């Protein structure tokens, strides 16, 4: 079901241009410019409160859910500005999936969790849903563990399995890009390793933007890394460069653990 999107002539999936974001009157993101490369993993790192989550949630317009939030600037997805007022945020969310910090399966069966995105799109053909659910669970490396209990409540899974279920849920609708907000911060090291491996495999199918607190994680799984500080992107480069030979002093201090 999930396959390469063939029309990726451009090497950028998303381009952020002069993005500013305000919670009410508080400006939290300042003139952000960032290019998210197609079929790569881009990591956002930076100290707590620097605006990583806020930036991530601009990409699927989650901020639209709450009154008083305001964007200026652009985020282009395949050259179309998805922040434009005439763009339907629901359509954006159908193209850009999201996985949260805390696994948040719905109070439904494993099967229904994965089928959720299809159901809200009005899909009701049983055999098609079956097929998609299986494929998504396989792609999330969860199928073998749950194939005999698809109709159990999702809450009965372990934390790591729940997070992979949330990834399967996001994959089921065949998105072009997936946003991850510290997806392993609530998990133990073994579950973390399996999610990291999964993310590395997924980039063949989707473009990935991931917020992480762990520098090792960014170094292990990402191709590009953006270092954020106080609402600005200080430096954005190949991950290797950011970690071994950063241009800015602040970046160097941060990746060497001198603050944050």
């Amino acid at each position, binding site marked *: 079901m999930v396959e390469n999107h063939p029309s990726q002539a451009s090497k950028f999936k998303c381009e952020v241009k002069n993005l500013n974001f305000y919670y009410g009157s508080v400006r939290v993101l300042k003139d952000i410019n960032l290019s998210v490369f197609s079929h790569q993993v881009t990591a956002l790192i930076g100290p707590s409160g620097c605006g990583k989550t806020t930036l991530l949630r601009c990409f699927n317009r989650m901020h639209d859910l709450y009154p008083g939030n305001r964007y200026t600037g652009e985020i282009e997805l395949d050259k179309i500005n998805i922040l434009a007022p005439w763009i339907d945020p629901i359509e954006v969310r159908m193209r850009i999936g999201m996985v*949260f910090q805390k696994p*948040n399966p*719905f109070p439904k069966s494993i099967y229904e969790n994965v089928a959720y995105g299809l159901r*809200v799109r009005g899909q009701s053909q049983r055999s098609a849903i079956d097929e998609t659910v299986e494929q998504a669970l396989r792609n999330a490396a969860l199928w073998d563990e749950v194939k005999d209990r698809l109709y159990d409540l999702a809450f009965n899974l372990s934390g790591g399995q729940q997070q992979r279920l*949330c990834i399967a849920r996001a994959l089921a609708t065949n998105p072009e890009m997936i946003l991850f907000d510290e997806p392993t911060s609530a998990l133990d090291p073994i579950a973390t390793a399996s999610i990291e491996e999964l993310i590395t495999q997924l980039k063949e199918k989707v473009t990935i933007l991931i917020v992480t607190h762990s520098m090792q994680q960014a170094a292990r799984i990402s191709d590009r890394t953006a270092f954020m500080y106080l609402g600005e992107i200080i430096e954005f480069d190949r991950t290797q460069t950011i970690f071994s030979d950063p241009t800015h002093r602040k970046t160097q201090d941060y990746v060497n653990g001198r603050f944050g």
Partner: protein
Amino acid sequence: MSEKYLKLSPTIHLAPRIIRNLRERIVELLLLGAAISSIATTIGILGILIYESFSFFQQVSIIKFLTDTEWSPLFENPRYGVVPLVSGTLVTTVVALSLAIPLGTIAAIYLSEFASPKLREIAKPCLEILAGIPTVVYGYFAYLFVTPLLQIPLPDLPGSNMLSAGLVMGIMIIPYVSSISEDAMRAVPVHLREGSYAMGATRLQTALRVVFPAAISGISAAYILGISRAVGETMIVAIAAGLQPILTWNPMEEAATITAYIVGVTQGDLPHGSLEYQTIFAAGLVLVLMTLVFNILGHFLTKRYREVY
């Protein structure tokens, strides 16, 4: 023993341990007393009901009580079939719930998922006022206003009827259903809602497919409370549905409920200890048992669908 009270540090000044312990014990006993007194009241009520019903059932067989279709304890040839009272209670309850559950649920979904905080702040107390109106006012509202209104499209509707009483009772119950359901839905964590929105769901889809099922245990508690209110409601049915124990399942007829019978019969003076007097307790026991059954049923349903998030 004395080393038990040895001071660890001379700089810590505490009341002597004995006094502290005593104080804790006294508070604990007071709390226990409060808890026991409420349980004792419940047991006392049940005890009296069972005791008085026991003498009743020594004179009237339980089988007859449960199967006879006529209730005329005050007549020359008294009959003691509780079925007509039960049917009256069930019919008015069903009418009330078929109004209160849909409207209460819709109101709860609207207030919890759609209304702006400002609107919610105004609408919620307004709804809750409905629950604070004295039931006798509702009774006359049903009898003097709703019944004549219903008689326009339904000219054959008698002056006392279960339809009007049930509908007005439903209005009274709406805030019980909506208020508790809304609390349950608002307690659903934001990260579940956001998970749904992030999948491209609309507000309505999120409300119906994620928030509602996640809150189902609280919502069914609200429904159970609504049922208990409807089964036990007295004034509205006594005034608007009449006091005639008639066995009918048609809401457009007059019929007495268990509660209406009790309140009607206590208006006359019945000799203490007479069989007529004991009918009150037998009827009351049925009422309590009905409520109990609904509560237990609700408890199991809630457990069955309990959601942990």
